[in-house]
């Protein structure tokens, strides 16, 4: 069983992230560290790294070798946000969706991988009848990546890449999946189910048979 000390989540130190420092779900299940401490942290026992949308991507680009090595040690990275600079292996920069109608933000779950099990796509697309909170664009996928969620023209919002490195990358072109909770919608399932997926993916990586 992976311990909470073996799952790191970066803290960009921004105002919106303040609540995470005292949030029970975060503190009971993972370890929050200042983003600028990443390169000073001993990652040898760390199994998963969760990188949130407000992260300093220039800092990650400076340390892209560290990121790549971490993955090639058969470990896991979850990134949510809009990639604009090269630091995540295999990933392309964010492309915003051109919007003509609110339905242009409508999401489809192609494959839930447990993370989106039982989640109503309308709950992802709409918040109090307003669309666009979940994702407003996509990252073009690396070869053979597994697409979980798409926008209406099959733009891949969420994908899993088990081929570019020896580890696993989950990339999501939207808001932090670990922070979907307490909205009284089926999307509340996402944070807990993502955590479960992280545990099972780490196990699969240890067994040398990445989850299919």
């Amino acid at each position, binding site marked *: 069983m992976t311990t909470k000390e073996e799952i790191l989540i970066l803290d960009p*130190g921004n105002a919106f992230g303040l609540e995470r420092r005292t949030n029970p779900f975060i503190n009971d299940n993972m370890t929050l560290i200042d983003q600028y401490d990443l390169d000073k942290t001993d990652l040898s026992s760390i199994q998963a790294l969760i990188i949130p949308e407000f992260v300093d*991507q220039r800092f990650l680009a400076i340390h892209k070798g560290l990121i790549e090595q971490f993955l090639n040690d058969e470990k896991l990275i979850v990134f949510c946000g809009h990639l604009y600079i090269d630091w995540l292996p295999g990933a392309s920069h964010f492309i915003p969706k051109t919007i003509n109608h609110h339905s242009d933000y409508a999401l489809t779950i192609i494959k839930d991988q447990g993370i989106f099990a039982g989640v109503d796509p309308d709950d992802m697309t709409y918040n109090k009848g307003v669309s666009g909170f979940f994702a407003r664009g996509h990252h073009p996928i690396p070869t053979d990546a597994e697409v979980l969620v798409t926008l209406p023209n099959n733009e891949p919002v969420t994908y899993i890449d088990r081929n570019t490195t020896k580890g696993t990358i989950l990339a999501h072109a939207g808001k932090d999946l670990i922070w979907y909770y307490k909205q009284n919608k089926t999307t509340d399932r996402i944070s807990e189910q993502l955590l479960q997926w992280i545990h099972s993916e780490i196990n699969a990586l240890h067994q040398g048979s990445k989850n299919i």
Partner: protein
Amino acid sequence: MRKIAVIMSGNAPHNRTFNEPKFNKYITQLIYFPEFEQTVLEEFDVLLFPSQLNEKLLMRAANKVRSFANNGGIVVAFGPQPWEWLPNQKWEERETNFWWWLEKGAKSGLVLAAPHYDLFNYLTLTDATWHQHGVFWPPNGAEKLITTEDGGAVMYVDKVSTKGTLIITTLDPDYHFGAYFMPATERFLDGFIPWLAEGKI
């Protein structure tokens, strides 16, 4: 035209907003926040601090920001400020009114407190209306430009706390435009940035 430097967090929204050509053309330099301490500020008239900056770097920057203002500089800050790094900062966190506009007979709760101010030749109250994360309570002598109905400052100009000028707002257009969300925030920046560069402050 004033020389404006913008502090960059390295996050994706800041990258989009301040590299957008129609805003970037008014900006002399983008300063990566981790390099702020080593940056010479003498040539700049304005330092713009967008929302969601790193706490530790803000606290480390506080004295340099105060010195810049005391040399006659203009300091601008966007967004909620849970850490006290601005001179005479009195921030009150409030529940964000994300959904006011879905209610019947909706009112945003915003008041145009200084309609004579030159900023409002560049933008309207509607352009500054999306939601608020809280208010400031500025010192006596500061001028509130936009307030809530109970008089809390959503935007104010403070020429008394330093020898320069502080322009402080709870609004966070840099984040929303940079995250491809909320059209009013683009209209706000369309007016605010040119005013900052060449308007009467």
